[in-house]
């Protein structure tokens, strides 16, 4: 390398904190290579769930609402994990449940992010009274316990899938609003935002091009966690009977419908396990997503292990 002293000063020669340039793909590969076993476990599980959800009709042995003669049937070669209270194949319903519950939770989370993220960004950029009004309104919504609020609203509007998505999305968007506003506040004070304003950029350009790329890591992490919470909320509502309605298969309602089987555990351990299967499916997914989010936050936040 030529130095300034023997060639005169040149901007291109300047060294300092110059980092090695890597393409996006190289960076992803590097991150994956150093991913811990827990993250790999999470990724494999989530990938498997997604495959099952997408190809449910090909994987499942029977139709979602096909009823067989024997209710509460035992585990056998026809019905891998038995049948439920009206004789539907539980294995089939578990597979369809992945599709329904995950699909609805995903749509709800997405909607919550559009609402909460949009308003959060607007509040952070505008500040002043717009921020005050939005923030206080969110405070009011958050002051009401969300499960009870959701139960009430579902009772009023009726529990269709569309209503479930909208109501949970609005309630959860308050959390997204809070987070978006908080992380955007750190970006809003940066000089490059002032530079964009001085250039004459419009609000939506500033939101999408200047702020969003900089708050993406915490937002993606929040998306994962929020998905888990929405998923649990839907399962809870279904368990309480106001969530996804039969005959649509759903893990939350499956726990409720087969809950009574658990008392037969002392006679047939398999029967006792049956209601735990959908609950286990919920738990496994939530844990897997959390593993991924943990790893993702760790790498993007720049936290480094001690060397």
């Amino acid at each position, binding site marked *: 390398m030529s130095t300034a002293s023997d060639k005169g*000063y040149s*901007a291109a020669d300047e060294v*300092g904190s110059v*980092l090695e340039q890597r393409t996006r793909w190289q960076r992803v590969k590097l991150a994956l290579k150093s991913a811990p076993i827990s993250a790999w476990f999470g990724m494999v599980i989530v990938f498997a769930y997604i495959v099952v959800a997408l190809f449910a009709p090909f994987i499942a042995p029977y139709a979602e609402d096909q009823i067989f003669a024997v209710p509460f049937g035992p585990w056998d070669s026809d019905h891998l994990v038995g049948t439920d209270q009206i004789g539907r194949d539980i294995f089939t319903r578990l597979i369809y449940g992945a599709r329904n519950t995950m699909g609805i939770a995903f749509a709800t989370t997405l909607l919550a992010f559009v609402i909460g993220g949009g308003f959060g960004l607007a509040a952070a950029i505008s500040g002043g009274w717009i921020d005050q009004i939005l923030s206080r309104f969110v405070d009011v919504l958050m002051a009401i316990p969300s499960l009870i609020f959701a139960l009430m609203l579902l009772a009023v509007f009726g529990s269709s899938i569309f209503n479930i998505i909208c109501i949970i999305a609005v309630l959860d968007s308050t959390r997204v609003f809070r987070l978006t506003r908080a992380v955007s506040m750190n970006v809003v004070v940066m000089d*490059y935002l002032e*530079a964009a304003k*001085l250039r*004459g950029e419009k609000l939506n350009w500033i939101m999408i091009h200047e702020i969003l790329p*900089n708050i993406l890591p915490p937002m993606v992490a929040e998306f994962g966690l929020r998905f888990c919470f929405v998923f649990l909320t839907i399962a809870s509502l279904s368990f309480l009977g106001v969530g996804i309605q039969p005959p649509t298969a759903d893990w939350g309602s499956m726990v409720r419908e087969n809950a009574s089987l658990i008392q037969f555990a002392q006679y047939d351990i398999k029967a006792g396990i049956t209601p735990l299967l959908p609950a286990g499916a919920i738990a496994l997914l939530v844990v897997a997503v959390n593993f991924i989010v943990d790893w993702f936050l760790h790498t993007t936040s720049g936290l*480094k292990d001690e060397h």
Partner: protein
Amino acid sequence: MNTNNSNNKEVLLQIKDLHIDGFSDNKWHDIIKGVDLTLHKGEVLGLIGESGAGKSTLGLAAMGFARPGCRLKSGSIVFDGQELMGMKERNKRELWGTRIAYVAQSAAAAFNPAFRLMDQTIESGVRSNTMSEADAKKDARDLFEALQLPDPQNIGDRYPHQVSGGQLQRVMTAMAMSSRPDLIIFDEPTTALDVTTQVNVLAAIRKVVRQFNTAAIYITHDLAVVAQMADVIKVLRYGETMEEADTRKMLSHPEHPYTKSLWAVRSIEKTPEPKTENVLEIKNVTAAYGRGENVLHDVSINLPRGRTVAIVGESGSGKSTAARVVTGLLPPSQGSVLFNGEALPAKLSGRSVDQLRRIQMIYQSADTAMNPRHKVRDIIGRPLAFYHDVSGAELDKRVEELLNMIELDASYMDRFPGELSGGQKQRICIARAIAADPEVVICDEVTSALDQIVQEGILKLLLKLQKELNISYLFITHDIATVKAISDEIVVMYQGKVVEQGVKADIFSPPYPEYTELLLASVPEMDPDWLDKVLDADKIPLDAS
């Protein structure tokens, strides 16, 4: 200074063939590549070099400490007969704060805001059981007095936010001194201060260091400062020693070409050009933030076309506020801004896209002035697309032309700001400003975060662009050397008022208004006797608090 008899003094610190590694990009890189260092008792060693030269790393290594992400790889560090390499953390901690002390650059960040200054000052003395609390407090008051702090009896009862930056830096020196260490590491203690405050701190530090015969390593990138403080100067670059010599010899006969080039930086000076018609006029502007007190009082500044007007003043003088009024971010409560003779709308939202295009801004910190998620192509390309409706291959061509103008090439197009060095980042910011094809560019302390050699490059680039494009610069700075290098006219501001405006030659020759005189007298010169002369001449009131 007692450099002549340093040979027969006892050696306090001996570093031999030290190698330090730093971890980044999943690999270890060497930061310090075999540096030797000898420090005698009571001697002050000046450590200078650009950022990234390894000054701070070496300074901390003198304490046997490596920052997280760094490791002391090989070599030896002998402090007063004890080998610090491989010494147990517990034993090292016994030395730290009692026999070796450290004074950090940002005193504000180094103090705990929840405790009074006195409690923090005496902490290390009391903790190590060398003295009782009452004795320590009395001693601290004496130190405050020696450091020329105002009201030394009671200043310790204040909290860190209740004293000024310069005072806090001196309290931190008192903290380091409280256990009478044999060695103090000063890591850029005056870099964050105004020149007029800096003199106070320098004088105070030098006084106590001499009084207690403390050895010190003084880290800085400012040659004139190190000339006042050090007996011996060591020049570092890329983790290697370039040159080491007595201060006087180093200043008068630098040997290494790199040292010479460092010395030459302060020599650029623009010859002022004749006045032209005003492109921008700030007329009798008074402004305040919110309903607070006025920050600007009846400020009038004229900027001629194709010329540079430098606004000089210390922090809080209203320099940057004046720029905010011009850009429309802060509408004035009285007065107006005229652009080419026509009044600009006071508010940003009232201005047309074309009016916005004509006034561009370059910021002090290029790190925060560029979106870290945008590539250079987007950063420079956006004003082209936004103002001039350029797109596609034409846009790429224009970006490349602009990169060539700032002495970089097309290979930088796909880099993110994080993949550039400090000077390159500032160049990209300059390219973004000129991409809009402006008539006025406001430069807000654009060189103050950069190393001297890089500063010189940026200033030369700005001068070259001014000649080619006939741009006017409103150049805000607190550094007199920069002012000399770039300006045609100078505005001196103090406490929100314009002290004087005039062509450079007039401002820099007597008679001076009182504040201008203080400001000029406070600028350190490359003369090791400068500080003594200034103190003798009594030109600067020590602590004007």
